[in-house]
């Protein structure tokens, strides 16, 4: 079984948020429930200050804090599903311990205050236990894996678009949006990225492009010191993650 991983080239990323929008459309998330987001940060000081950015999906950690703290095993890491971390919406009791335990801040509680007006949960009231029912709904629903429109009182998160990825042919090394045979299985954020800054493939396959990129370009993981060991890697000499860069000399 593959171990799905994502590689994000920060030298290519323009911070356009197309990935964020595509994710919201694909997964019918509410405004503010950004399973995928772009973080902006400043580096340096005036007059040479620079704005940098970093896309942040769920890291699908190899050693996930959220899974360790979940009292009911509603959050679990499925090694038979590419090592993706899921939330079983049938088991989640809404204690939100996972949200506090996640060092990356990529978990969402759907009952919170709406960020935008009008409140879409009122415009499109939820049916069948859903938090809301927009006109277009992704037909793929699997509450055991947290796929579909979020029900009330539970926690949601990025699934690496498992409803697409899971249909990919067995043994494929990379899910490349340029390959017409595989494009339908590519996660929404990867497929929509205009500068093709994202790569998605099997981290356990030595021949996969993602593995080569991580090895050749010294891919790094966010907050690796926490021991969570994300399955998302970042590349880029000019825009690498500050936490992994030597501090400037005084």
């Amino acid at each position, binding site marked *: 079984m593959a171990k799905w991983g994502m590689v994000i080239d920060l030298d290519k990323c323009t911070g356009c948020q197309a990935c964020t929008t595509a994710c919201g459309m694909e997964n019918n998330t509410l405004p*503010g429930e950004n399973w995928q987001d772009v973080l902006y940060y400043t580096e340096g000081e005036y007059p040479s200050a620079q704005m940098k950015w970093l896309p*942040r999906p769920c890291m699908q950690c190899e050693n996930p804090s959220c899974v360790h703290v979940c009292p009911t095993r509603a959050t679990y890491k499925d090694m038979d599903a590419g090592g993706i971390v899921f939330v079983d919406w049938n088991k989640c009791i809404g204690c939100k311990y996972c949200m506090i335990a996640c060092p990356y801040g990529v978990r969402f509680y759907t009952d919170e205050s709406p960020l935008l007006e009008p409140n879409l949960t009122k415009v499109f009231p939820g049916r069948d236990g859903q938090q809301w029912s927009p006109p277009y709904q992704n037909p793929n629903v699997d509450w055991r894996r947290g796929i579909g429109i979020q029900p009330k009182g539970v926690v949601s998160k990025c699934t690496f678009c498992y409803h697409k990825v899971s249909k990919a042919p067995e043994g494929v090394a990379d899910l490349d949006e340029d390959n017409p045979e595989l494009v339908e299985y590519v996660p929404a954020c990867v497929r929509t990225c205009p500068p093709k800054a994202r790569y998605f493939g099997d981290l356990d396959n030595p021949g996969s492009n993602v593995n080569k990129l991580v090895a050749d370009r010294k891919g790094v993981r966010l907050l690796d010191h926490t021991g969570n060991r994300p399955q998302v890697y970042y590349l880029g000499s000019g825009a690498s993650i500050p936490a992994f860069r030597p501090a400037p000399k005084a």
Partner: protein
Amino acid sequence: MKAMTHFREIEGRSKGYYGLLVLLLFGIGLGLVAAALKGTYGHHITGMNNHVVWGLPHVFAIFLIVAASGALNVASIASVFGRKAYKPLAPLSGLLAITLLVGGLAVLVLDLGRPDRLIVAMTHYNFKSIFAWNIFLYTGFIAIVAVYLWFMMERRMNPHSTKVGYLAFIWRLILTTGTGSIFGFLVAREAYDAAILAPLFIALSFSLGLAVFLLVLMAAYNWTGRPLGDAILRRLKNLLGIFVAGVLYFVAVYHLTNLYATRLHGVEAFLLVHGGIYPFLFWFGQIALGSVLPLVLLFHPVWSRCRAVIAAACGLVILGGLAQLYVTIIGGQAYPLDLFPGHDVSSSFFDGVVAPYTPSAVEWMLGIGGVALALFMVTVAIKFLRFLPESLADDKVDPHHAAQAAAGAEPAKA
């Protein structure tokens, strides 16, 4: 000579008693209404958001759970540490331990996103989660203390009460360690992630539990007109002072340790200096009003003889404890995740900024409901069961006191 203690139910027929019951029922009603509103409209009617996910109800819940553990101290002093003078107080101590815990758990459960799925929490365990362990620790604590109470109150079981007392004492230490570890095990949040939170919570449980116990004891004896001697009160208030000082010590060590680590200077500055409500609650609520002032009141040679002053000190300790838990629980979440140390971060999801939080009326109602539930159970229990001694006069509690008084000597100090 062995002093005999006679336990008796309170009469509980006065207008004051029924008035208290009505007041507490009103408080419980507030909690139930709050739970119904949250269940109907969702958490967005609270002040909580995707950054501060545990709000005021958790402050109340943790307060009650920690105080429950500490309330059992008085019984432990008698059975584990062999101080016979405290033995008459042991049943009330056990009763408070159970009722406070039930009140706290009620708030905790009703604050869940899906309280209707409590059965899931009871049937699916993840033993890596301290939350799952706490389910066993809390329910086990209630069961053990119930047996402990039975052994204490049933004459033929009395000889075994010491053994159960030991078990309850060890269990409560583990329980509070578990509660502190909910936060201490969290690497993601800079304000948590500290092993010292477990002993800090144990010390906090000692002071909060005893403060609640003292207030309930004084109120019960005052309102029922039963004698409550100065000797036992003096011992308990001195003990409370020591516990408050103990909490201060752990709080100082916690912050000084954090201040020694450069990477934690940001969160410490936030909690202690420029974090808005949090430094105010820390310095004014927790330290000044909740620790220093009670210490002065409890150990002042003249003021500490006045019962109203002791009661005020207990109240301040409780308020200080609530402030402390507010700073720890909510302040720890409000401070942003440090994804890029040394850099200012922003996003469309409020990364890099201090998360706003203002508790809503619904959250207050739920928290008050938990407190009211705990006190309601105590009020009813002491009417129908023999939890309170008829007299806690000095000569009844401490046989040596009567002998010393007869000899014209001062009563022994704690």
